[in-house]
């Protein structure tokens, strides 16, 4: 749906879409054997709403502005796997799974309920007793309440595909000054902090500051992070939402301030026009994720470098 209203000052562009990708190439496992054959037999549905609103106005000869906002929602859903119950992805230690009704390659593991704080909590929980746990270890959610933590307690922990993305821009013109800014962001996606997870294979990796400062060091110190020694024990190395973090972020994509100089008018005939500007590219990204960069390929962070902010000062001369 498109609309232009109020003397073309307001534009609205709205789309609702349901798009089925049929005959998607998915791995079809060989019976009994290892390996799979890629076949064009999967169906994946993407549905959502896209909305873009723009507003432009000229207050007077000296001052005009325009604004725009766009938002889109996205629901990704596996619809058909050629009769397969699920397709495993990721690796055995960091399991992802495509299953009908869930987003493609969702993270799959235990949910952390908290940290065992003291011996009393340990002895009160048969799960902790059976697995010889100690205070500082993870307490996983026993989804089926059978006092055993096993495959039946694994759940989908979210997907790397964002459910909501948004962007916006603003442009101002005042006399010879121009100002513009673009922003963007997304929510609803998860990031596998695999950099944190790979401690299981290494003796001497760095850990991120939030984890280092937040480690459980005694009763009441943390209900989120385990103790340092727990990181080395198999129980706590089970794949859980401890390693799956929100991927929300907001970013100022760029800001520009420019001043236009009319050379002829200012300095007389033959002088060039000029434009002086200051630009900041990606000067600000706001995110809670405990990595350097929330934009990671397919939601798996195995060490991404931070995004550099680039500041530019420039002059354009037009002869």
């Amino acid at each position, binding site marked *: 749906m498109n609309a232009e209203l109020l003397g073309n000052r307001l534009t609205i562009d709205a789309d609702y879409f349901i798009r089925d990708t049929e005959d998607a190439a998915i791995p079809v496992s060989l*019976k*009994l*054997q*290892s*390996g799979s054959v890629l076949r064009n037999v999967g169906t994946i549905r993407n549905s959502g709403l896209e909305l873009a609103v723009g507003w432009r106005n000229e207050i007077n000869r000296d001052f005009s502005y325009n604004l725009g906002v766009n938002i889109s929602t996205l629901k990704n859903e596996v619809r058909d796997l050629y009769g397969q119950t699920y397709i495993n992805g990721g690796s055995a230690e960091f399991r992802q799974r495509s299953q009908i009704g869930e987003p493609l390659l969702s993270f799959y593991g235990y949910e952390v309920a908290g940290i065992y704080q003291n011996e009393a909590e340990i002895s009160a929980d048969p799960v902790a007793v059976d697995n010889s746990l100690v205070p500082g270890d993870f307490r996983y959610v026993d989804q089926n309440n059978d006092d055993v933590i096993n*495959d039946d307690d694994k759940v989908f922990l979210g997907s790397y595909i964002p459910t909501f993305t948004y962007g916006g821009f603003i442009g101002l013109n005042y006399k010879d000054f121009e100002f513009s800014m673009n922003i963007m962001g997304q929510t609803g996606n998860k990031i596998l902090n695999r950099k944190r997870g790979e401690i299981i294979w290494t003796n001497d990796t760095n850990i991120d500051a939030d984890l280092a400062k937040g480690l459980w060091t005694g009763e009441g110190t943390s209900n989120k992070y385990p103790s340092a020694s727990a990181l080395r024990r198999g129980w706590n190395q*089970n794949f859980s939402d401890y390693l799956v973090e929100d991927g929300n972020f907001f970013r100022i994509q760029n800001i520009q301030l420019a001043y236009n100089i009319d050379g002829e008018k200012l300095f007389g005939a033959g002088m060039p026009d000029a434009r002086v500007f200051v630009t900041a590219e990606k000067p600000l990204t706001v995110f809670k994720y405990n990595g350097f960069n929330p934009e990671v390929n397919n939601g798996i962070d195995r060490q991404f470098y931070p995004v550099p902010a680039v500041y530019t000062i420039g002059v354009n001369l037009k002869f």
Partner: protein
Amino acid sequence: MKKKLLIKYFAPVMLVGLLLVSVIGCTDKLDQPFENESFTSDVDYTISENMVLPLMGAYQGLYTRSWEEPLTLGIRGDDVNAAGDQVPMQEQDNYMYQASHWNPNSVWQLHYNDIVNVFTAIEEINKYREASGNDAMADQYIAECRVMRGYLYLNIARTFGGCIVIDELDNIQNTPVSNKAQVMQYIVDEMTDAIPNLPDMHPNKRSDIPGGMTTYTAYAIQALAYQEMEDYQGVVNATSQIINSGEFRLSDDFYHLFKKAGKLNDENIMEFQYSDFYQGEGDNSNFLWAPFGIGGWTPVVTGAGAGWGFYEPTLKYIEFMLDRGEVERLETSVIFTPDGITELQNDYGELPEWIDNTNREGDIFNNNARLNFVSGKHSQPSTELIPGRTSYGSNKNFIVIRYSEMLLTYAEALTRGASSNISMSADDAVNMVRARAGLTNLSGVTTQDVLDEKFAELAMEWGTRFYDMVRTENTSALSYGGRTFTMDKAYLPFPADQVAELPHLEEGID
């Protein structure tokens, strides 16, 4: 006039159109090969010497084992601890099984890969048979394939307590699950069928495929299957064929049996063979031994690669051996680190003087966070590396079935009342094995004596000890070091991924 114009106008358009159709036509796609199918139409099946090629493919499949397979098969006994960073293996070592564990799934899949591979090889050999008319050769090669397949099923059924025995490759979905006894009977029957067509000699005497399958490999696998069925008369019948052949001999040098000198030894009945082809670089064919090794060692040959430290002989085994006064077999089976020696001293007391953290060749084994003891049978001294090769254990063979195991299996069956047509008694068989280990003779051996001898002799090898303890329902032997074993832990659950693929696995084994 108008008509003429029309023709004049349309003729070029039609021509160009036709031309386009011929250019973009898709008829040439019809000539392309089908997907997912291999083509053998260009193979000349009349050349009977080439019949060996599909057989070699089957051997290659059998020898190409992934590191996690022997580890997964080996870690559950009271001879081995799972060490290292593999949580599933540690859990299995403690009898905590989960269907989602990746390594049993891998054992399952990789074994079935090779079983399917055997089917394909047999099919190809039969094409050579038809075209070349060489029936005798085809019969022998197919018999070899069936021995390999029997061995693979033996592993799967002992691990999972049953499996799908494939009759036809395209009927897997409808093939019911066989329980362990059924699989063992299938293996016994397969070996009975194969034996008449196999070379009747020691594998190392074969000139066509040195170390390949022979009559006696089939008898050995049949004996192991009988043993799982607790058909001890069957065990004696099969093993006495091996013993009576005179083809096999215990190596005088137990230590070097597991080193380079032991390749194709007279003691080896089945052996996975690997090679660096006597070259310091270039092609090689090797098993990944690193998981059996230790992370920190000071090898005599500088640059010799270290291991991962996943496979640790248990304190229980070492103390069992010290109690027996064993030297040769303990030295061969276990390599000590300084921490390990301290742990032993604290737990056991004074140790014999010969125990130190150096092997015979001078490699020094240092302390390691993952393990205190290293499996010596899986360790190759750095001095045996071909110069230029640095991977841990490069060029080392993997012995699968040894004559000593057959002697002890025979002896145990006799102690359980089976009768033998050959003169060797249970005492004789056990004492042959003991003499080689430098121990004195026993007389009137009991079943327990034989099982102890097997523990001492075969520790760390392929889970043999675990299977023995499961077969004899000796839960107390397997309940050690804080673990508790119950008989419902005898078999790993069918891997979750397999059940998802073949739901009738879920109905399980009757």
